[in-house]
């Protein structure tokens, strides 16, 4: 057996030398090694912990870029040598990595943002007693996220999916001594579990229908027989989508994301902008083949008719985008504005998937990862400068006190708002609007345009109130620029916010989902205006509208004029449309009632009859049997001989 294992190891090591794509294994394992090293080795030294974690992530980033250049640009897809993990009956799970355009792009995003966030954190959390724990958790998180990205089957993805849940729990609750942080961590974890339950059911449905959990094999099975999922096709898709609904915080499971802002700001940048929340969208794109199968409902759901799972996904995404944008209008906490903006952009991406544009969704995911991480880190710099003040109305006039932060934040805002030609956000948002239009969803297109007008409005409200005007508190008056370790990650993130669209990323992704894709003639920077003028013009128009409105209302304002003008609507926005209150009113009493019932059953039936009864009788039997064990040798030999007699009698009978 061991000779066999040795052969296997030899085969694996020679495979490393001949297959560069096996680099993916290194990339995946580096952060895990760092996490283990911190947990078991250098935990006592914050400096060593951060160095270990950062160097592992930076190395992973460099390897990811190498992989991207080697395979991504060559358009070459391959799967590094898998080795079998579980073979139980008809369930075969191989530990295999999917290395293709989709995953190498995500590798670069995740390792890149993670590395920058960690460098930034060394300054932001300087002197925090839990620093080693922080870097250990963040390494574990990076490992889990890379696992989701590289998983080539649903079971492996689910395992890492849960690991992301656990490590984000640790990070959101990093300051666990604050009750609000501990509660937020719990809320995020539980809300996610709710979605994961559906995801798991979805995996089971897919497995039972296609007999496989590997993405490639599912694709082949559905390619050979598009109706392999039978009447459960749409249900399976929606169940899988439940997982995405949790991680990517889609309505009605969106409530955890704003609360998760209780974690340290760099964590928000990593988890709630670039990685964890992107996992849901990424998973939808990875398993897109499931949604391409013709939709079908079980017989008793006939009334759903021609509506497909994708339609429902698109509607949920679009609704989330609008709802979150409206809530963002009336938030005063700088991080919450960004959190709702993230929700809104995620809604956009999910809507794009639903409209049949996974390439557009991935495109927006990529650009959004860059500029939203930038915005969060910028917000962190502002909060840091203002002595942990997060209310934008208590800031003001920061633009010349925090020059680097202001300039990079402005670039991030421009990208999020979608300033044409200059910023990456414009192109990816345009791709989504085009997807809605091409997918035959004019209503969702209109909704997208509306959100595109709202986005610059609430972002400029944030910029104008926080950075311009007169300082409104002492903290703002004495603000000073953050240290180098915090500013240069901002600069590094500002570059892709502008430049990422110049390299044909959209075409790169489109070619992944559609092998017959050909780049448009006359692409380039003005491409959107040439081949889909309607979307581009509407997008630009909504931007101008939003910007004008924001300047008109907020330039020079010292208090928010909106509550007076909008009245009740504003109150509703400010209170997040009372979702938390409604959930509390409905779920908490219900929960209490079920809880009380369960407690009663547990106390009287399970614990009383079951456990105590069983425990009592078992304990009694144990004590009775112990009487046999007298310790007396004569008894033992007698029992032994008696036993021999019985065995011989039975054996020869």
């Amino acid at each position, binding site marked *: *057996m*061991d000779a*066999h294992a040795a052969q296997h190891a030899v085969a694996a090591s020679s495979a490393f030398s001949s297959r560069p794509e096996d680099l993916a294994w290194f990339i995946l394992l580096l952060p895990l090694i760092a996490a283990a090293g911190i947990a078991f080795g250098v935990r006592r030294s914050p400096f060593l912990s951060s160095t270990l974690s950062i160097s592992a992530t930076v190395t992973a980033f460099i390897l990811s870029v190498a992989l991207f250049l080697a395979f991504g640009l060559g358009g070459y897809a391959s799967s590094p040598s898998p080795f079998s993990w579980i073979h139980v009956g008809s369930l075969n799970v191989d530990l295999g990595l999917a290395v293709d355009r989709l995953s190498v792009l995500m590798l670069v995003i995740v390792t890149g943002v993670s590395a920058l966030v960690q460098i930034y954190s060394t300054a932001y959390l300087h002197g925090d007693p839990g620093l080693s724990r922080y870097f250990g958790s963040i390494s574990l998180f990076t490992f889990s996220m890379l696992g989701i990205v590289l998983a080539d089957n649903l079971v492996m993805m689910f395992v890492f999916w849960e690991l992301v849940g656990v490590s984000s729990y640790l990070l959101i609750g990093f300051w666990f001594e604050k009750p609000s942080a501990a509660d937020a961590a719990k809320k995020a974890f539980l809300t996610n579990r709710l979605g994961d339950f559906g995801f798991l059911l979805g995996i089971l449905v897919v497995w039972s229908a296609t007999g496989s959990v590997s993405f490639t094999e599912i694709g082949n099975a559905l390619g050979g027989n598009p109706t392999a999922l039978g009447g459960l096709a749409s249900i399976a898709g929606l169940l899988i989508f439940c997982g995405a609904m949790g991680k990517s915080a889609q309505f009605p499971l969106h409530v955890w994301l704003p609360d998760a802002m209780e974690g340290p700001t760099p964590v928000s940048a990593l988890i709630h902008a670039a990685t964890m929340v992107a996992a849901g969208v990424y998973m939808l794109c990875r398993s897109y083949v499931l949604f391409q199968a013709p939709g079908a409902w079980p017989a008793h759901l006939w009334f759903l008719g021609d509506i497909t799972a994708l339609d429902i996904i698109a509607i949920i995404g679009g609704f989330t985008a609008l709802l979150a944008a409206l809530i963002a209008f009336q938030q005063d906490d700088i991080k919450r504005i960004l959190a709702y903006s993230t929700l809104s952009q995620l809604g956009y991406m999910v809507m794009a998937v639903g409209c049949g544009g996974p390439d557009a969704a991935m495109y927006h995911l990529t650009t959004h990862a860059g500029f939203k991480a930038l915005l969060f880190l910028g917000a962190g710099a502002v909060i840091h400068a203002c002595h942990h003040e997060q209310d934008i109305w208590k800031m003001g006039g920061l633009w010349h006190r925090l020059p680097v932060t202001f300039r990079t934040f402005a670039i991030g805002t421009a990208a999020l708002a979608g300033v044409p030609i200059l910023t990456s956000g414009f192109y990816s948002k345009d791709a989504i609007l085009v997807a809605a239009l091409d997918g035959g969803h004019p209503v969702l297109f209109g909704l997208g345009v509306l959100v595109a007008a709202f986005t610059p409005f609430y972002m400029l409200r944030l910029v104008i109130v926080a950075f311009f005007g007169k300082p409104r508190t002492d903290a703002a008056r004495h603000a000073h620029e953050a240290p180098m370790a915090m500013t240069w990650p901002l600069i590094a993130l500002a570059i892709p916010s502008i430049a990422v669209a110049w390299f044909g990323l959209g075409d790169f992704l489109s070619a992944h989902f559609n092998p017959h894709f050909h780049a448009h003639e006359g692409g380039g920077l003005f491409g959107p205006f040439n081949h889909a003028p309607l979307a581009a013009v509407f997008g630009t128009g909504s931007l101008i509208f939003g910007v004008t409105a924001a300047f008109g209302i907020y330039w020079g304002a010292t208090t928010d004029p909106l509550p007076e003008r909008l009245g009740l609507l504003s109150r509703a926005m400010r209170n997040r449309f009372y979702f938390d209150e409604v959930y509390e009113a409905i779920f908490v009493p219900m929960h209490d009632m079920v809880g009380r019932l369960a407690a009663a059953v547990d106390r009287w039936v399970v614990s009383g009859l079951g456990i105590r009864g069983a425990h009592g009788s078992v304990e009694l039997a144990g004590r009775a049997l112990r009487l046999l064990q007298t*310790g007396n040798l004569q008894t033992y030999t007698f*029992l032994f001989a008696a036993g*021999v007699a019985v*065995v011989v009698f039975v054996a020869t009978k």
Partner: protein
Amino acid sequence: MNYSLLSLEILVTLLGVTVLLADLWIPASARKLLGYAAATGAGVLLTYAIGSGAPADGTAFGGMFVVDALSNYFKGFFLLAALVVLLLTVDLSDTIKGYAEYCALILFATVGMLFAASANDFVLMFVALELITVTFFVLVSYDRTRSGSLEAGVKYLIMGALASAFMVFGIALIFGSAGTTNFYEIAAHQAELGKSPVFLIGLALTLVGLGFKVAAVPFQMWAPDVYQGAPPLTTAFLATGSKAAGFALLMRVAFSAVPEITAHWSRLILVIGVLTLLYGSLCAIPQRSVKRLMGYSSIANAGYLLLGMAAVSLSGSTAVLTYLGGYIFTVLAGFAVIAVISSRAGSDDVSVFAGLGQRSPILATGLTVSVVSLAGIPPMAGFFGKFLLLKAVANHAGTERFFLVALLAACVGVVISLYYYFNVIRSMFWPKSVPDLTPIAVGGATRLALVLSIVGVFYIGILPNSLVTGARQAAAGLAPQSAVAGHAAAASAPAAAHH
């Protein structure tokens, strides 16, 4: 004769003799070196045995001694157990009087186990067993100044002598009725021999002797007393090497010598298995001594293993071998901790383990991993072994009511075991009283032994494939050449073979 087949046995003997002789010249202050040397030797032999050095299949001594996949499978684990136990002795060398002899005795017991793995004849089987048992008489009573150790030694001696007497009597009856003691030759005539009551009585008495070794009901009485009284490292070796040797022989006799009779006795083995596992699980509940608890746990585990044997199928034998592999790592991890703590505190009451999580994280990890694995919880080795065993039993549960009952009993046993295993964890992390919280220093050799065992437990639990493949090859090689057809028939339809 091809002496290379015996290379491992010869080398381990030489190693033991070298340790004994070296003690004459090495100063008492440097005796730790002996332990290191013995452990290094065992480690080198282990890598040699599982690497290129494994002798090719063949027989020696006129068919008495056989080298095949099964013997190689077991020999690797015996050497591993010896390696870990020897490593553990190093840091406790000051507390062991006559340290060199202790190491040498462990090596000699290992030689007995190596022979047991290769025994293909009732006579060699008996000699190998006696080599193990006699060495253990000494090892159990090694702590001469402690009456508990002496009492355990005397009990083991008398019960062992009784078992040996029955066994030798059984072998005589076998020889008398069959005219041979070679497993292959008996297998060739088992159809006629199965009708001879003399032969059956002889076989049953032989199995009684083996049942004593593995502590199966009703021959289990010695185990708790001896496990509790013996020095902890002796107990560790008793629970791993000696028990595995018993199963190696049990499997060889049952499936190589008399597969058809084993198929007839499937129900008997099943009943013994169920009684054994229930007895072990139930008696473990009120225990406060952790070593005694491990004694009962060892009985319970023998019960599970017997269930796998009762399945009389390739999957059953594979499961037994896989389970044993994981069990050895698991038990070694647990006893490493028990040895350190009990030699320090002078007691092995559950209460001395209180607060271990704070006193020494690595010790707490070792004991937790061990106990959780024994309870059969993924992703530990114990889960996978138990899963395969119960699966093998469940394969017959649909057609045979006995197997269904056994399956249910096994599940009950698992649930009961959760209770007492987690009791240990509870007192380790959530003690009732505020314990002594002084940190415990753990020596390098102990640390190495612990890490080795813990990694093994996780490796087998998470990536069991290589072990299962090896176990399957070993199990498949059990059928003797002349009786392949008979065994295959018995394996495929054990239920049909009953009267």
